[in-house]
């Protein structure tokens, strides 16, 4: 048997020969899942379950952030572009966020990472209309203060994310962080005591 024969034989026995390639959507999700993980948490670190579950409310991957009337943050998201042009309200300032629908795995949130958020606020949901959630901020921890914040889904996002029964409820208060054009999904959600204490600790 020559080396070539041996190689041919081995190639025939390649267990990955029939492996179908991933869809581009799955690849996008894989990349987004990865990039939504904070880079300072070491792998295999188990997160406290309650916080994980609650902080992960905003199960959203990338989000492009537009600040109207308060400047414009650069957009670096993967595969997402701003859903709409900057809208300037003559009478009130608005922070506009668009949210994708890919699922995210959250590592244990840390104060150090949250502290890097360029925009962070506490706000109460005023309306949920046509996939757009309008929040009235009660406090900005970081970033330019605006009168309202609008959160809109991008194409393909699940309806469950916005306006679903267990997501954004009118009258409920949420904590939302965004950084470099991205909503920090793992650091945003309903203002549970756990998330609140993380924000208190950070800001």
């Amino acid at each position, binding site marked *: *048997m*020559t*080396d070539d*024969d*041996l*190689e041919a*034989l*081995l*190639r*025939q*026995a*390649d*267990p*990955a020969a*029939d*492996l179908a*390639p*991933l869809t581009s959507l799955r*690849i996008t999700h*894989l*990349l987004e*899942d*990865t*990039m939504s*993980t904070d*880079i300072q948490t070491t*792998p*295999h670190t188990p997160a406290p379950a309650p916080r994980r579950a609650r902080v992960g409310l905003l199960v959203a991957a990338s989000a492009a952030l537009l600040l109207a009337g308060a400047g414009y943050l*650069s957009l*670096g*998201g*993967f595969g997402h572009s701003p859903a709409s042009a900057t809208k300037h309200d003559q009478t009130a300032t608005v922070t506009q966020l668009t949210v994708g629908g890919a699922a995210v*795995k959250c590592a244990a949130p840390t104060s150090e990472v949250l502290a*890097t958020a360029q925009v962070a606020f506490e706000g109460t949901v005023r309306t949920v209309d046509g996939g757009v959630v309008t929040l009235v901020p009660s406090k900005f921890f970081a970033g330019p203060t605006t009168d309202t914040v609008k959160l809109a889904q991008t194409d393909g996002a699940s309806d469950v994310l916005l306006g679903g029964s267990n997501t954004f409820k009118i009258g409920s208060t949420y904590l939302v962080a965004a*950084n*470099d*054009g*991205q909503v920090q999904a793992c650091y945003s959600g309903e203002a549970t005591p756990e998330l609140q204490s993380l924000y208190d600790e950070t800001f």
Partner: protein
Amino acid sequence: MSPDHRRAKFEAIAPALIEPIRRFLARRTDAATADDVLSETLLVIWRRLDDVPAEHLPWAYGVARHCLANAHRAQRRQERLLARITMLDRPSDISRVSGALEDQVGEAMGQLRPDEAEVLRLSVWEQLGPTEIGQVLGLSANAVSIRLYRARRNLKTELRKLAPPGGHEESTRGRLP
């Protein structure tokens, strides 16, 4: 590196690595573990973006190999036994036209020393040269070449041992010259 630059760099590097790493893992473990380790490998690449060398792929294989070893150690700790990381132990759900031949190759590979089997896999399945294999395994190209030589020789010996006697011998010899 700013977050924007990190994302841009990752998005430039990672998509081309996903399929090779998936195949690398599919050749060495079960489907569920492969999925987990793929995510873990991407995470390590994301976190170590500053360390990624110009030659991405061998480095990424090295990361995947390390993550896979960790996963297998964890599995062993949980007594979900993976006796050997060889194709011999792979689940039999991957359909093959010539199953008998592959079983034979798999069995022969299972008889090799793990480091010899691994250089063969990296050479034939991942199609890496000795220098690249050296990058994956942390060896010199020379050491890889020597190991490859021994691995080929030993695999041929094992395959000859496995060639069944009697009526099937002729056809097997035909397939395994």
